[in-house]
């Protein structure tokens, strides 16, 4: 376990010492600030609209951070050959994969925490009635677990596709496809003939349904909280997918020559 935390620590250090991360972070915050300064007729709908745009931005930013950070981990280690002195130590490849995953996931979590705290403060400055703290908590936790699935998927991709750029692009396309099309696959399957219908149905039940984790409306419209048992089930579902992707990554990496 110590080895996993040591590797995770280095991943987090690397991310927080990269300038591009800060640029992304500052640009997101600046755009949110500009959005928050707009005040038209003191209309509540406008505030909701601004919240939606800001949350969209946070979602895009978090997805970019998760995919780009994870996609480059193992390829960069191979390219810079930092993998050699590392694997010459009593560190197993499984520990390395788990450490990389944990580091990227925790780093995403920290970035997300900053975004949500900032967003919450911004929203609170515009909405004076009440501040739905638990709604924010549910949305942030679900968002973080969704990023966990994406980090695990990108890590697996980084072992299959050697170049970080191609892995980032492919992962972005897959994640975009799941988010926008995944939820409609079962409906689409009804209009198809066999065996295509069976294939599309199988795909529907195989892919991780990332849309479960999209609780933006809960925050935007101040909807009532979702029952905690459903949140718990969704987190278990995410943990299952993370485990499957990480197992795949470990199996691919286990026999790979690193010279």
């Amino acid at each position, binding site marked *: 376990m*110590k*080895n996993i*935390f*040591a590797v995770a*620590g*280095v991943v987090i*250090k*690397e991310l927080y*010492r*990269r300038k591009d991360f800060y640029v992304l972070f500052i640009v997101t915050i600046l755009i949110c600030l500009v959005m928050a300064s707009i005040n038209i007729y003191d209309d509540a709908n406008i505030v909701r609209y601004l919240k939606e745009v800001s949350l969209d931005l946070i979602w895009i930013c978090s997805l970019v951070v998760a995919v780009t950070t994870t996609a480059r981990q193992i390829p960069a280690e191979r390219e*810079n*050959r*930092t*993998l*050699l*002195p*590392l*694997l*010459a*130590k*009593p*560190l*197993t490849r499984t520990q390395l994969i788990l450490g990389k995953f944990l580091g990227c996931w925790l780093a995403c979590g920290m970035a997300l925490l900053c975004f949500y705290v900032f967003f919450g403060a911004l929203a609170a400055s515009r909405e004076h009635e009440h501040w739905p703290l638990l709604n924010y908590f549910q949305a942030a936790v679900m968002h973080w677990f969704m990023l966990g699935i994406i980090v695990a998927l990108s890590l697996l991709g980084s072992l299959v596709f050697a170049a970080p750029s191609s892995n980032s692009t492919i992962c972005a396309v897959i994640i975009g496809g799941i988010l926008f099309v995944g939820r409609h696959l079962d409906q689409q399957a009804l209009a198809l003939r066999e065996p295509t219908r069976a294939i599309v149905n199988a795909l529907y039940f195989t892919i991780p349904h990332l849309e479960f984790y999209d609780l933006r409306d809960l925050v935007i419209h101040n909807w009532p909280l979702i029952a905690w048992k459903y949140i718990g089930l969704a987190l278990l579902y995410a943990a299952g997918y993370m485990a499957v992707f990480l197992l795949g990554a470990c199996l691919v990496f286990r*026999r790979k*020559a*690193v*010279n």
Partner: protein
Amino acid sequence: MSTILRTEKLRVEFRSREMRQATKIALCGLDLEVGTGEVFGFLGPNGAGKTTTMNVLLGFVPPTSGAAYLFGIDVRQPIARQRIGYLPELTYYYKFLTAEELLRFYAKIFGLPRAVADQRIPELLKLVELEGAAKRPIKSYSKGMQQRVGLAQALINDPDLLILDEPTSGLDPLGRMKVREIIQRLKNEGKTVFFSSHELGEVESVCDRVAIIHQGELKALGRVADITGTHANLEKAFLAIIGFQLQPVS
């Protein structure tokens, strides 16, 4: 003297894309034994299979057939690497970390207690003369300084076996002398050093035994004096063993 490093009929084949999936034999039935406290030189021209042998010993590359053992443990077991230190040919370290952070990270991987690491890290930084630059990121170091960080990280766990892949490559004469001094010091402490080098004069001066490989095959193995034999020096013997004919200058 017990055996600390052993290879048995080690064979490594690579499928080369450039050669349209033809098989390239990198190592062909290599048998080696290195005993405790030896300084062992591993020699060969470029592409002979030195780095491949080290890669197998460190678990980077699985052998096609045969086996390799460190301290009697199969090299595929990570525990086999608990008591070794490895210095790669070039500096492959996290450039965004400082030397101190890098050493602390590796100390954690070796499971060194914090108190031991706190004591060992300044000692090593002093040994490689980097105590003044310990808080600077490695990316700001010169090549020689980076190589010295490499040496420090190879010694962090006080290893019983040190595997050095061309440790003096790219170093200035002062740096080379320092590396030689450290190897000598380790030898005096009873540590085993297994290193590859193209600096045959250096090998002659510090090694107890040497092995010469060429095209993946072991060509000679023995004490430096035995290998040199009737030749003027190790370099001449090396050239004769790998079948290189010196052309007279016209």
